[in-house]
Structure formats: C-alpha cells, structure tokens
C-alpha cells in the first residue's frame, strides 16, 4: 500500500496562447492531501464562525467570506514556495490563514483585538504578513494587482541572471478584472518578462452583477490578449495545485506573466449585508454545493485513494471544529487595543515590522484641555 496516489485532472484546464499545458494527472501523498483537507476545512469552519459572530454583532463593518472558494487558496498554497509572493482582495481571511496566520489571529482581528493579525487596526480587509510574503488584503477593487506586479518586479530585480525566480500572484475577482490598472500592470509585466501570475477568481458575480453584465470578455483567461492564459477548475484543489505548479514553472523561468482563471463559486453573499439570493437563485447555490463542493471533492479523493475512511474523516472534522472553537475563544480573550495604539504605527522608523513608536500628533483635540496641546509629542 503506497502512501502516494495518482489523481486524474483531465478536463480541468483550458489554455490560451500556450504550447504546453499542465499535466492531466496529479500525484499526491497522503500527508499532503490530508494537509490540504485540514486547511480547507479549517477555512470553511472559520468562515462559518465569522458569519455567526457577525450576526452576534461581535464583528463589524464589511466582512467578505471565502467559503466555496477554499480550493483556490489551498491549491495555490500547495504549489507555491514560501518565498513566492501573494496578494489578494478584501476576501482575504483564508489566504491570511494559509500564509502563517492562526484562526485566533484572523478572528481576533475581526473582533478588533490587540492580538489580531493587524493589531485590530485593519479589520476584515487588511491582513498582511511581510515575513511570509503575504501582502494583503486590499479594500480597493483592483488596486492589489499592480502592487502584486511590484512583487514580481522585486523578484526579478533580486534574482541572478539565469536563475529560477520566485513568482508573485495577485488574486482578484471577475468583477475586478476589467479595472484598467490591471491591464496597465499586465502590459508592464509582459514588456519586462516579470514572473507574475494574474489570478482571476471567477465566482460569476461582482457583488450582485453577473459576469455577462459587467465583462465583455467572459473567458477571463483570454483577457491578457497576447499573454498566455490558463483556465482551471477552481473547485478541484488538485487541479489548482497542478495548474499553479505549471504557472509557477512557466513564469519563474523568465517567460513572462500568465493569466490564470479559477472557475469557482462563493456560497455566501458578497458581504454580510448581502443575502446573496436576489441576483442568483437558490437552486444555483444548492446545485453548486451538491455537485461541486471543493471539500466534498477532497474527501472523496481521500477515500478513493484509501488514505482515510469516511469515519476517520468525520473524526478529523470534529477535531478541527473543536480547534476552531478554541481559537475563537482565545481570540475573544485578547484585550482591545489600548488608546495609545491610535497614534502608533503611522510612521515606521525602520523596515522591521512593528518599528515606529507612538507619535502623538502636534495638536490633539481632546475633551481634556490639558491633553489638547502638544508640540513634538509633548505637552506644550
């Protein structure tokens, strides 16, 4: 009994302007598949917890959930080296988790607590982890894409000629895909052969607008025009992994950028204020859940390969649910940021994370007159 198995991903890909293509089979070890499942299920549970906590008013503001799309981030994570750069949109909880966050640090951020991923200052849309090459979390649609191209630029800048380069991926939605700055970045990446992957998570809606109403090109993998493109079944984590391996290999070797389209689906509404059922019907959601769910898919792979029994999987799920609960409790215990945090981290004093002290502004309006006049951080 081998602890490796081979999975068929035939039909998971379409290519554009490419001579080669990803493999049609993927080999995967038990450990690896289990790891992917664990991550995906943790993501799922975390997002469902966020939904509950939001409804219990423990989370405020915007909150965009990723359930349904877990295979995308997980597959990218599996294909990437830790030094490959990653940036995404506001729908970023699960990438933050994949890139070195704990559930408690992610959920803690949403609670606005000091032990949150961004010390409670960023909230749902603003997770970053410089040490792990994770650059956000961006609240402005499309804006993360040129920034991601900057990572690709830096990778090339720092690489030695002839050496394989680390790549950069920027994830963005179908709704974002027509933002002009994305094309501007694509043009530069193509001109300068930057190791950049433009990754469209096509979940078929930008908020309440379906792709046919916001995009004249609905084959997103062809949006790069002369830039090669790859469409991947984004509900199949093995296909995502293989496709991204292929893209990383291609881009990292100095062939320039690639457009990658992930066919995926979001189960929740756009954000917590959107029920998500006015512009698409419940059948569509139910059908996707029952036929394409990315978690069910991995579970089936685990069983089919005889890596695990259904019962073992159930036990594992139970354990993960408990872990997530524990993490949430931990997050809740963290205190809210002290008031002085308000004036902390406005300016850095060096490039190390958390550099920079408290910078009282020269003049603060405060109820207390005594506290209201400052020069150079001291009372006048």
């Amino acid at each position: 009994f081998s602890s490796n198995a081979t999975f068929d991903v035939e039909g998971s890909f379409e290519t554009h302007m490419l001579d080669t293509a990803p493999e049609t089979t993927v080999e995967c070890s038990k450990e690896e598949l289990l790891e992917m499942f664990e991550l995906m299920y943790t993501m799922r549970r975390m997002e469902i917890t966020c939904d509950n906590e939001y409804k219990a008013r423990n989370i405020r503001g915007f909150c965009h959930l990723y359930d349904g799309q877990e295979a995308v981030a997980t597959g990218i994570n599996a294909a990437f080296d830790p030094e490959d750069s990653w940036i995404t949109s506001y729908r970023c909880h699960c990438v933050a988790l994949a890139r070195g966050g704990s559930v408690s640090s992610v959920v803690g951020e949403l609670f606005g607590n000091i032990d949150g991923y961004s010390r409670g200052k960023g909230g749902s849309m603003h997770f970053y982890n410089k040490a792990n090459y994770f650059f956000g979390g961006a609240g402005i649609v499309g804006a993360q894409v040129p920034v991601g191209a900057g990572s690709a630029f830096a990778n090339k800048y720092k690489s030695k000629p002839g050496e394989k380069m680390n790549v950069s991926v920027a994830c963005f939605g179908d709704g974002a895909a027509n933002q002009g700055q994305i094309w501007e970045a694509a043009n530069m990446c193509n001109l300068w052969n930057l190791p950049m992957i433009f990754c469209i998570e096509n979940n078929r809606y930008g908020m309440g607008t379906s792709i046919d109403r916001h995009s004249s090109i609905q084959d997103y993998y062809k949006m790069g025009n002369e830039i090669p493109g790859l469409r991947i079944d984004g509900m199949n984590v093995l296909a995502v992994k293989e496709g991204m391996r292929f893209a990383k290999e291609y881009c990292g070797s100095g062939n320039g950028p690639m457009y990658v389209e992930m066919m995926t689906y979001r189960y929740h509404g756009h954000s917590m204020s959107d029920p998500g059922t006015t512009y698409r019907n419940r059948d569509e959601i139910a059908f996707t859940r029952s036929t394409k769910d990315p978690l069910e898919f991995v579970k089936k792979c685990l069983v089919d390969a005889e890596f695990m029994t259904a019962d073992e999987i159930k036990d594992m799920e139970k354990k993960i649910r408990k872990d997530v609960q524990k993490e949430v409790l931990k997050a809740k215990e963290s205190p809210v940021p002290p008031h002085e945090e308000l004036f902390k981290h406005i300016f850095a004093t060096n490039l190390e994370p958390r550099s920079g002290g408290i910078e009282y502004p020269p003049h603060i309006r405060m109820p207390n007159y005594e506290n209201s006049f400052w020069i150079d951080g001291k009372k006048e």
Partner: protein
Amino acid sequence: IDMAVREAICQGLDEEMERDENVFIMGEEVAQYQGAYKVTKGLFQKYGDKRVIDTPITEMGFTGLGVGASFHDLKPVIEFMTINFSMQAIDQVVNGAAKQFYMSGGDLACPIVFRGPNGFSAGTAAQHSQCFGAWYSSCPGLKVVSPYSSEDAKGLIKAAIRDPNPVMVLEHELMYGISFPMSDEAQSKDWVVPIGQAKIEREGTDVTIISFSKPVGLALEAAEVMATKGVSCEVINLLSLRPLDRKTIIASAKKTGRVVSLEQGWPQCGISSEIAAILMETDAFNYLDAPMERVTGADVPMPYAADLEKAALPQLEDVVAAIERTTYRSMAA
C-alpha cells in the same frame, strides 16, 4: 411626515428623472441591486435599463464616460459606491469636469452630478473612511454640497441635478437610515435647496458651531448640553462646501464672537482650517472674543477596532470641551 435620508435622496432623484428625460443614473449596483445602500431603490423598475445603468467596477472609465455624456446636455448622476472610490476617478472629476468650462473659455459646460457616501462609516477601516470635503472643495469649477437632514438631502440632490455645472454631493452612510421630519414644502416637487447657502440650524448668541454632514447632529446635541449650562449656541449647517457661504459664517461669528468648527475629516488643510483663515482675513476677526477652536477627526488613518475608531472621531465630550474652552480662552489685549 418623517422620511429617512435614503428615501429623501431617492425621491429627489425620482422627481428629477420624471421632470427631465435627459437625467440618467449610472454606477455600480445602482440598478438591479437597487444600490449598495439602497439609495436608488425602485428607480430601475420605474425607468428601466436605459436610464438606470449598472456599470463594471471601473470608476475612472465610467466617470469619464459620464463627463462625455454631459457634453451632449444629458445629465448623468454618477454614483460612487463610496466616495473613497472616486480617488480612482479623481482626474476625471477635477481635470475633466471641474476645469472644463473655464479651459474652453466658456464653450463647454459639464453638467454632471457625482454622489455617494463620504467619510466615516462604522468598522470599515482606513481605505473606506476618508472624508473628501476639503479636497473637492478646494477645486474651482466644482460645486460641492453635503446634506445633513432629509430636507437637505432631497433639496440638494435636486439642485445639483438642475445645476449646469459639475456638482459633488457628499452624503454620509450612517445618515441614510436616519429619519427627519419633512415639511410640506420639502415634500413638493419644487423643493430645491440653493447651492452656496448655509443654514442656521439653531439660533444662539454665545458661540457658533460650524459643521456639515453627520456631525451637524453632534453640534445640535452639544448645543442642547450647553443650553443646560446656560450657554446659547448657534449651529450652522454649511450644506455647501463650494461655494462656501462666507457671509453666513462671518455674520454669525460677528454676532456670537466665538466659533467652534466640527468635522470628521482629518485636521490638516481641512474645512476647519479654511474657516480659521476666513475669520483671520475678514473683519469677523475683530469681533472674536476668543480664538476659534477646531474639532476634527484625529490625524490618523481610520483604525478598525471600535474603541480606536471612537477615539479617532469627534465625540460629544470633545465638542462640549471645545465650546467651553472658547469661553475660558479669550483674545489677547
């Protein structure tokens, strides 16, 4: 009757669309979704996809497109889902719309309306909470208005649509759901609030509080508190940030001799700064019994955590404290 600000804006839009078939609405999710904040509710159903148009998420593109459409005497009402996103399109707003009439020596007017929620909105952090009052109001050629109540909101959107110039309407997300009484006049189709005139929300004799948008409510609260302390506050609701109603500001400053300005935006080069400059450069100065106080948002990107957010924004205590300071502090001889 009472009406929420959201409905007041919608009613204003509806009446103007009925009045003039050249008026159309364009923006993200304004049609089928009824607006991200439901401001345009019902208009798509009533006017159809010719006049209520969902756009792709491409602010620079559709803003420019609106500007071009206005050259044909159409009247585009461009919704920014929030005004933060107008930063992607700001070149079209300022270099395109605002400067157009002047650059053409008066040949080509640009009758367009931009609108959307501006500034702070609870729990949305730094990129979704910026106030653009000061920036836009600094630009000649643009008109900038900012309603507080439902009457303001309806009257200003209608004025903006009828104006032959580009008008930026800075609404406030947290006001959409707030209800205000609507007078009979305000319910009529002829209700238009003239652009360029401030409104005295409350008359008073001791201190003038000057504000716009949501914090006008805070100013009124502070005035209530001060009244119990025997201080009579006059509250000015600016309504229009460009043209700024200097006359009303100056007259009130002369009358009360004490001025507190109040806004949620950042302090540096803000609307409060401008009010300070106005008081300095006019004879209002000679009537001041104390230097002006400004109460503004803290000089930080908006944090997410609730406590920090609160500390970053003017609270009632802050306003009261500032008013009290103006009564302690007085002019040097």
